[in-house]
């Protein structure tokens, strides 16, 4: 064999390395760029922050004042996410908040969501339930788990967790776990963090 030409093994190694680069570098970046472009189009009637990405179908509607923060993520899945801000309403979403598929977010008067929150699949947040309209406030770093429903007028404190399937009808203090129907809150220190030695 002539010197300088790669052997079969070397060629195979180079090809594998190339495939690896495409899989770990090129494709994720392309997906991300596509997500950002799709979000720009979907949320064209919103005031939109930088780096908002929509990886799945989102039905978005804004007839009021809707502001989305930087670096939001809308994941795709078996059902579209829906974000609606009706006439005269205010919808604010803080930076780096993530929405899984099937989330339904409706603002008829005012819905405020803090930064770094997580909304799991099929969570419903609406400040109108057919009887009354009352603003919803969700503070920073809140995690709302699968299928939870937040009723009008509730305020979820910072760093709290709403467990799956809960129906929240009363305010949840900061650093709490809300659970059940109607949801009751307990300190996260009691069930999820190292208990204080007090």
């Amino acid at each position, binding site marked *: 064999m002539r010197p300088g030409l790669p052997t079969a093994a070397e060629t195979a190694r180079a090809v594998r390395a190339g495939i690896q680069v495409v899989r770990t570098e090129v494709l994720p970046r392309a997906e991300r760029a596509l997500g950002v472009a799709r979000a720009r189009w979907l949320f064209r009637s919103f005031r939109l922050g930088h780096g908002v990405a929509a990886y799945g179908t989102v039905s978005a509607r804004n007839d009021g004042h809707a502001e989305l923060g930087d670096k939001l993520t809308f994941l795709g899945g078996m059902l579209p996410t829906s974000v609606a801000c009706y006439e005269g309403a205010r919808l604010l979403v803080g930076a780096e908040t993530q929405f899984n598929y099937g989330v339904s977010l409706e603002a008829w008067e005012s819905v405020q969501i803090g930064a770094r929150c997580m909304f799991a699949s099929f969570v419903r947040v609406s400040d109108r339930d057919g009887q009354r309209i009352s603003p919803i406030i969700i503070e920073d770093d809140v995690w709302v788990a699968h299928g939870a429903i937040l009723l009008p007028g509730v305020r979820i404190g910072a760093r709290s967790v709403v467990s799956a399937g809960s129906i929240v009808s009363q305010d949840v203090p900061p650093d709490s776990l809300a659970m059940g129907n109607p949801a*009751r809150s307990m300190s996260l220190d009691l069930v*999820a963090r190292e*208990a204080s030695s007090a």
Partner: protein
Amino acid sequence: MSPRETLRTFIVDTFFVDDFGDDDSFLRKGLIDSTGMMELVAFIETEFHIKLDDKELVPENLDSLSRVAAFVTRKQSLSKAS
């Protein structure tokens, strides 16, 4: 039965744990999880006819058998006084 014995029986029967000390932390020993804690709260409310406020659901009140027993006794005497 004293509150402490009632509570111990409930915890043993419901969470299938025995062999735990009166001062063992439910959380640190992994005896009761979050849903279990909700069950314990519901049990306390029906069994001792007291109403717990969400603000009272903190480790100082509920994280070990002796703390729960002391808390229940305190709540009962408060509700009797009022």
